[in-house]
């Protein structure tokens, strides 16, 4: 009888224990209708298997790949939903509230809540801590023509993540591109052979 006591206890208490542990994975809504309205949408779902596969194809000798590999080492999931629209206010706050409401569950702590008058962007960042370690990140960014939800599961290093921006070909510039006249791209010709000599 004694040898069955522990397994029985675990079987009985297991679900309760699982329920007590915080779950950093958000339930992402389908956002029906938004994909059709959006001029651009990004849906990324990377579970542990895909992250591990991606890791095998990241080249340790390439600085960008190496930095990325370093970041995803402790991660168990990355989920992104991002919608960009041609006009302001094409999406409703209620679209995002379904996600935001999950962040009031135990375990989530709001790290920062920002609002920029210049960009009219609101960015909220939440962290889930378990045993003094970050085990999940949730980021909600809403701008007039775009909203983005990011959910990262696992041990995250925010500082490394922030520093990655310069490496992704996104130049850190203070250039006002609103004054740049649009130019037609040159056509890529490739059909006319040179004269045979």
């Amino acid at each position: 009888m004694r040898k069955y006591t522990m397994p029985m206890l675990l079987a009985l208490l297991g679900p309760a224990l699982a329920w007590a542990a915080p779950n950093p994975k958000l339930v992402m809504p389908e956002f029906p209708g938004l994909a059709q309205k959006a001029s651009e949408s990004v849906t990324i779902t990377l579970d542990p298997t895909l992250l591990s596969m991606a890791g095998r194809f990241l080249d340790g000798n390439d600085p960008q790949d190496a930095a990325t590999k370093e970041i995803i080492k402790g991660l168990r999931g990355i989920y992104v939903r991002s919608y960009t629209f041609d006009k302001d206010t094409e999406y409703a706050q209620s679209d995002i509230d379904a996600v935001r409401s999950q962040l009031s569950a135990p375990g989530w702590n709001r790290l920062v809540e920002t609002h920029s008058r210049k960009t009219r962007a609101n960015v909220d960042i939440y962290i889930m801590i378990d045993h003094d370690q970050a085990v999940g990140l949730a980021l909600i960014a809403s701008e007039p023509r775009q909203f983005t939800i990011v959910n990262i599961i696992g041990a995250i290093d925010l500082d490394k993540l922030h520093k990655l921006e310069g490496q992704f070909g996104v130049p850190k510039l203070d250039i006002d591109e609103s004054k740049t006249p649009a130019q037609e791209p040159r056509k890529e010709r490739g059909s006319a052979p040179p004269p045979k000599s």
Partner: protein
Amino acid sequence: MNQDIESGMRSALRPVAPSDEFSRKLLARVAADPQARPKSYGLMPRSARPLAWWLATSLAACLVLAVGIERHLEQQRLQQSGLEARREVLQALRVTSQKLNLAFEAVKSQSTSLADEKPGL
């Protein structure tokens, strides 16, 4: 003088090789590109050999080919999936770091405004 500057240009502009690492990656990506699939396998050439022998050889060749192609396609699929996963990871982290930067910029500008309002602090 003309010749000197032109020969100077030719020397200065001798082609440089990319790194070995890049070459390796480039060849792998070109090989994995779905557009590199063979357009057609072509027909078996006609032969004057006896029909039975020809049929047997063709069947055997087709079998070997089928197995080889299947394995190759499977490897190609795995490679494609891996490359696609890598692409998605990079995109996801790019988006995340862009939004983090938005937040950091907002916090920075708020700190600057507070400092301007209360210079003594």
